[in-house]
């Protein structure tokens, strides 16, 4: 963002002198809104397209068609759904805590939305193409993505429904537990890279896929990647860890009472979260915007396009894997989920840290 503001200031100094009295703070606020709009558009568009893709993937896996009525191959289905959701009646139960009930979907959405602020999507002029480049990017992402759980508990509690409450509390237990293996598995990468800066982490993975962190110290980083991926499924409430919504058990849990657009906010944030955790996996383990090959296909600053393709290619593949799992696996039980987090993933994550520590010392 700073670079763009610098560029704008140069322009203002050179050609748009009548804008000079506008103070720098206004430019900051303006750019903040522009970037927020870009990310919001991206997340919402992704959520729409992903909801369509999910149904198509499910359709192919289950030998049925999926949406195929609105537009060619049903591609406009998500638009139709969006219109339908906006037009639907907005119900709030009598027993609900109305203020929290209204507020919860935004908090959930905020959690997934704010994560994107720190991602380097590509590289341009040797700088990170993203909203901002934080030197504590990884920490920021971990911290901000946990806001989702607050919204979910809020929704579960405010619905005034026992099923929702159970869903909300299940979610609290689950997401909080799975943050721990995620954090610890990232520590291995932080040890290797020596930084929390996501752009710097990506830059260190330049030069072919064998330079990606996932292949760097083979048994340890691979297992760290696996631990992260499993835990990220739990973070996004996807099968086999969709325990907070568990339709067959607690009737969709925390979002049972939500209808129309409020409901779709939960769904958008679920898909947004899928993209967020996949992007993070891409950045930290799979080389982010770096190419599979040791050289760049597009020369010079044109690399920005290539980088975007690599980045989203990898991230979307991981999103696809998440969908694939959803239509294959049954769901864990709450205690088994806890068992997996604390007794399986976490010890292995610690073993990784020790292993890499020893390897680096040798």
């Amino acid at each position: 963002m700073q670079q763009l503001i610098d560029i704008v200031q140069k322009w203002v100094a050179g050609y748009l002198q009548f804008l000079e009295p506008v103070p720098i703070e206004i430019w900051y606020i303006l750019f903040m809104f522009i970037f927020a709009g870009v990310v919001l558009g991206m997340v919402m568009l992704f959520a729409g397209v992903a909801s369509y893709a999910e149904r198509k993937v499910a359709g192919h896996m289950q030998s049925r068609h999926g949406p195929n009525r609105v537009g060619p191959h049903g591609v406009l289905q998500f638009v139709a759904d969006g219109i339908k959701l906006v037009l639907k009646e907005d119900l709030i139960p009598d027993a609900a805590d109305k203020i929290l009930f209204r507020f919860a979907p935004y908090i959930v959405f905020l959690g997934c939305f704010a994560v994107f602020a720190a991602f380097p999507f590509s590289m341009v002029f040797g700088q990170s193409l993203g909203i901002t480049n934080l030197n504590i990017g990884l920490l920021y992402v971990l911290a901000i993505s946990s806001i989702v759980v607050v919204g979910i508990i809020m929704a579960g509690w405010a619905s005034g429904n026992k099923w929702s409450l159970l869903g909300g509390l299940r979610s609290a237990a689950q997401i909080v537990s799975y943050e721990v293996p995620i954090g610890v598995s990232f520590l291995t990468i932080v040890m290797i890279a020596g930084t929390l800066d996501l752009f710097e982490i990506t830059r260190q993975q330049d030069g072919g896929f064998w330079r990606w962190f996932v292949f760097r110290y083979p048994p340890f980083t691979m297992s760290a990647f696996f631990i992260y991926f499993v835990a990220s499924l739990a973070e996004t409430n996807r099968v086999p860890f969709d325990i907070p919504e568990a339709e067959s058990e607690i009737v969709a849990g925390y979002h049972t009472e939500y209808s129309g657009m409020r409901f779709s906010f939960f769904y958008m944030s679920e898909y947004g979260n899928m993209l967020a955790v996949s992007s993070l996996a891409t950045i930290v383990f799979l080389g982010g915007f770096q190419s599979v090959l040791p050289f760049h296909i597009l020369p010079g600053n044109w690399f920005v396009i290539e980088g975007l393709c690599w980045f989203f290619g990898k991230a979307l593949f991981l999103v696809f894997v998440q969908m694939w799992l959803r239509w294959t696996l049954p769901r864990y039980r709450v205690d088994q989920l806890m068992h997996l987090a604390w007794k399986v993933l976490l010890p292995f994550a610690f073993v990784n840290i020790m292993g890499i520590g020893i390897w680096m010392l040798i």
Partner: protein
Amino acid sequence: MPESETAKQSEGFSELSRAVSTFVGEELVINFGPQHPSMHGVLRLIVKSEGEIVSEITPVIGYLHRGMEKIAERLNYHQFMPYTDRIDYLASMNCNFAYAATVEKLAGIEIPKRAEYIRVIMAELNRIASHLVFFGTAGLESGAWTPIVYAFREREYIVDLFDMTCGQRLTYNYFRIGGVADDLPKGFMEKARAFCDYFEPKIKEYNELLSYNEIFIKRTANVAVLPPETAVKYSVTGPNLRASGVKWDLRKNEPYSIYPEIDFDIPVSSGEKGMVGDTWNRYIIRMREMEESVKIIRQCLDKIPEGDYLTKVPRLFKAPPGEVYCRFENPRGELGFYLISDGGKSPYRLKIRTPSFAHLWVLPEISTGGMISDLIVAFGSLDLVVPEIDR
């Protein structure tokens, strides 16, 4: 709840549930159903739970009561046949079969051999169809979505066969007192054989997808264990009883129709993945029964004789005074008709013994002390059909 009792009830559950269920906290009373997505029909369970641990289950039935047994007393013997379709909508043919055979036994009507074969083919096809729905819902209740679509894909072939035979796709009113309504249509035999060939590999696919999935085994093995003594005490029958390790199948133990002439096995659980009588065993028994049913259908298709398919029974025939109780192996267990005739043109009294009714009452026994997720999976594994409970 006394501690010893709690420990007994939660036998077979995970360590965590056991630890938590001994702890007395605030109870949450929640209503399961009648609209809950996992209630097969309209059943209501009043569940008391301490957090996720179920401490008391009270089933509430009667949302679908139709007074079927009373209706039988007002109609003549033929007229009651369509009502039997509705006893168990997933196994209409089997219910038809049971009622027709009961009346025939009371009235001493002999039916042609060909009709017997047709009846067994239909009954076994319907058993597969019913178990397929079970397979689908078992997946759904454990959180897997794909099985139900696969199950319905295959069930559609069976429904097509029924459609060409009797023109209906859910309540197949095909059986008549004295035989079946019509002969097998042209092309039925080939299609039925093709179905057998098509279906057998699919069972393997199901096993790969769900039965031997690690998570599914974790969810179901050692969950909601029904020991054989309890099963017998609650008069549990059918696959649920055989899953508890009791080899009891009316097709073998009290053979009726042409079952003695056919070679097939009765799958009994041996506790492959957990304890005998757990949820996984109740599931896998049905998968194995489908294989056996395919075997039976194949043999029937090979052996079916030419000839008449219906003994003409007068429209207003009168059964001689007397009483009879006949029981039949339905997909869900023992379906019994207790029929009393006073010599009139309609039954004096008809009592229907349905398997699901007995199975429902073991649910509190096996699920108390477990978690809500276990309750759902155990409930699904009992394969209840609520209209059958309420009649």
